[in-house]
């Protein structure tokens, strides 16, 4: 049952491997980017689940309430930055794919390799 108690890590690792596998194994440039996105999302989950404190609530100060347990907000804030980075990476990657498609007429890895020779 210990293994199940860490289910958030299992989910993280599953997502991470799905993303990483897609990134490596797929030849289509768009699919590679999707894989990269899933891979980065798994990291977001790793951080956010790390910040959860059992029984904790959102870290907003309420007047009159004492002895409230708060979740750790720092990992959430860090992931806000990581999401922005992910958006920027995806946008840049997709714009490169669009231009590759215009220049080579394909977005398949193996066809690109033949074209480049």
């Amino acid at each position, binding site marked *: 049952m210990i293994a199940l108690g860490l289910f958030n890590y299992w989910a993280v690792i599953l997502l991470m491997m799905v993303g990483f596998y897609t990134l490596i194994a797929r030849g289509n440039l768009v699919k590679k980017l999707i894989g990269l996105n899933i891979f980065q999302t798994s990291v977001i989950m790793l951080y956010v689940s790390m910040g959860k404190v059992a029984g904790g609530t*959102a870290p907003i100060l309420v007047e009159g309430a004492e002895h409230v347990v708060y979740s750790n907000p720092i990992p959430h804030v860090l992931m806000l930055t990581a999401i922005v980075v992910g958006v920027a990476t995806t946008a840049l990657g997709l714009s490169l794919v*669009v231009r590759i*498609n215009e220049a080579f007429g394909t977005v398949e890895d193996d066809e690109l390799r033949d074209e480049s020779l």
Partner: protein
Amino acid sequence: MDDLVVLRVGTKILIPFILLFALYVQFHGDYGPGGGFQAGVIFAAAYVLYALVFGIGNALRVMPAKVVYACGAVGVMIFVGTGFVTMGLGGVFLDYNVLAHEPSHGQHYGIIAVELGVLVTVFGVMVAIFYAFAGRRRLDP
């Protein structure tokens, strides 16, 4: 899109509320959940909705691509500029305490200024990305 009356009227009704919600998120960003990034995305979402329904030509008339790019740059300068103002007032970089007589007020002003910069940049960049992809013509088969 002249025949899609429901869509056009519905969009026209929705857009003001989306923009208002963006401002709500923006101005709660100092001491509560929310802030410039979310507000900027919501703002851009309203604009993208407009562009999708009324066509990118109309959208470009409302806000030409140049203005959008400028937004992206100006926002960063607002953010960094706030830091320079605090340095000019004798604090360290982004030390909001020096912005007002009372430190807690200074924190309010500082966060609002910085979030405004974030809002402008995020809005500009989101719409710029939309323009870049939507404005491209399809390749000849």
